[in-house]
């Protein structure tokens, strides 16, 4: 009899706890708007590694190299051929076009705020910008230029000899592959997106964004679940996810780290300037923001590698418009867009 009573008592405790937890979950309010905004406050300046500190000379040289088509094997394609400043450092194509005018398998990623990146490329195979900088130059299907040949070519240009010597005054031989990587990486770290209407709103300008965008911000942090992968001031957690796009031979992160569970997974990109950077996804397969939302509303492939962070969302037509209105507040203002290409040395 006593054991029955104890059993009933224990069961009633379990039931009370369960009801309490469920009640709390239903009652618990979400974070207030100021708390949410605080999570998106911009840092003051980009970080530079101790092994490649910022200097204006290095950044200037890196910019010149970035815009120079002589960095490609056929002298016809610069880094800026795919990373166009006027297109949010992308190219507007579904996938990039490399050497010989042939399509590269993946969409060109933006370079906004790469100084804060942990890994680079859609599959994260480069762990620093210095490592990343030379890889498209050497890739046969991109710029197709071995570095040794490129260095010899640059040494033959007086203007480059001078610019490298100014950027690396301590170096015995300033024009080198390592210094080319460092200069391009330094320039890339300066590509910090200018203040957007959203940033001004976070900083205290209550009128910087409209009502629809404010509702969209709440959706972004709540019902639309965007913040799961695109949280923080740069709108990415840098993690790798299979989001259920059509499977291809390109397995993304899985082969890079030898973990089959992340086959089909690619890095969550920043959403800054996103409404100026269509088409979308690593394969450029979704042409509009509306198509992206439809994808997350359940138009994705269910398979074992699908990200555990991905659940189908459900938004009304008005909510979709609000979400897009919010994303548009992340656009670089027309007056703050990057300047034109530099003059190339002879």
């Amino acid at each position, binding site marked *: 009899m006593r054991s029955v*009573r*104890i059993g009933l*008592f*224990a069961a009633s405790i379990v039931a009370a706890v369960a009801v309490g937890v469920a009640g709390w979950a239903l009652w618990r309010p979400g974070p207030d708007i100021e708390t949410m905004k605080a999570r998106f406050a911009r840092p003051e300046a980009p970080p530079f590694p101790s092994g490649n500190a910022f200097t204006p000379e290095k950044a200037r040289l890196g910019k010149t190299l970035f815009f120079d088509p002589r960095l490609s094997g056929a002298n016809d394609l610069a880094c800026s051929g795919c990373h166009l400043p006027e297109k949010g450092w992308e190219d507007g194509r579904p996938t990039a076009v490399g050497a010989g005018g042939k399509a590269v398998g993946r969409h060109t990623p933006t370079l906004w705020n790469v100084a804060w990146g*942990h*890994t680079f490329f859609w599959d*994260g195979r480069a*762990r620093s910008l210095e490592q990343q900088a030379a890889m498209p130059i050497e890739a046969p299907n991109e710029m197709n230029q071995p570095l040794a040949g490129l260095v010899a070519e640059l040494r033959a240009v007086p203007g480059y000899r001078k610019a490298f010597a100014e950027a690396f005054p301590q170096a015995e031989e300033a024009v080198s592959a390592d210094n080319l990587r460092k200069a391009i990486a330094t320039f890339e770290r300066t590509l910090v997106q200018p203040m957007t209407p959203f940033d001004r709103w976070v900083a205290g300008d209550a009128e910087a964004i409209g009502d629809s965008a404010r509702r969209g911000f709440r959706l972004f942090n709540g019902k639309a679940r965007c913040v799961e992968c695109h949280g923080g001031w740069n709108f990415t*957690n*840098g*993690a*790798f996810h299979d989001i259920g796009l059509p499977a291809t031979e390109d397995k993304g*992160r899985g082969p*890079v*780290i*030898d*973990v*089959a*569970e*992340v086959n089909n*997974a690619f890095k969550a990109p920043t959403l800054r300037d996103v409404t100026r950077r269509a088409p979308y996804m690593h394969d450029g397969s979704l042409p509009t923001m509306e198509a992206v939302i439809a994808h997350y509303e359940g138009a994705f492939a269910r398979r074992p590698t699908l990200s*555990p*962070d991905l659940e189908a969302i459900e938004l009304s037509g008005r909510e979709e418009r609000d979400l897009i209105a919010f994303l548009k507040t992340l656009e670089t203002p027309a007056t703050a867009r990057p300047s034109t290409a530099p003059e190339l040395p002879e």
Partner: protein
Amino acid sequence: MIRPAACLALIAVLAVAACDGSDDAGPPKVSQKGKAFHPDSLDIAAGQTVVLHNDDTRTHNIRVFHPAMDFNSGSQKPGEDMRLTFEDAGTYFVTCGIHPRMELKVEVAPPDGKGADEAE
């Protein structure tokens, strides 16, 4: 009627269930939960082993990039332990290859008590 002793026993059981299961006599344990390491820094001595437990609901991939240790755990599924032994003094950063913002800083002191920097 439940007796006070039974209540105390119930409380003790709940307390044990609520703790993290660490054992003072065993190697330091680090939990991975919510895409973060807990704790996110450790001070140990050279030769010591750290147990990394995946308390998350997702697969992790433990990575260490250091001149003295280039480590790739492969797939670490929820509930699995991974043991890492730090043989050499120095400062190590343990990350996840799937969630690169996860970072565990491990300061490894030499066995004779010299500072990690002196030993490097």
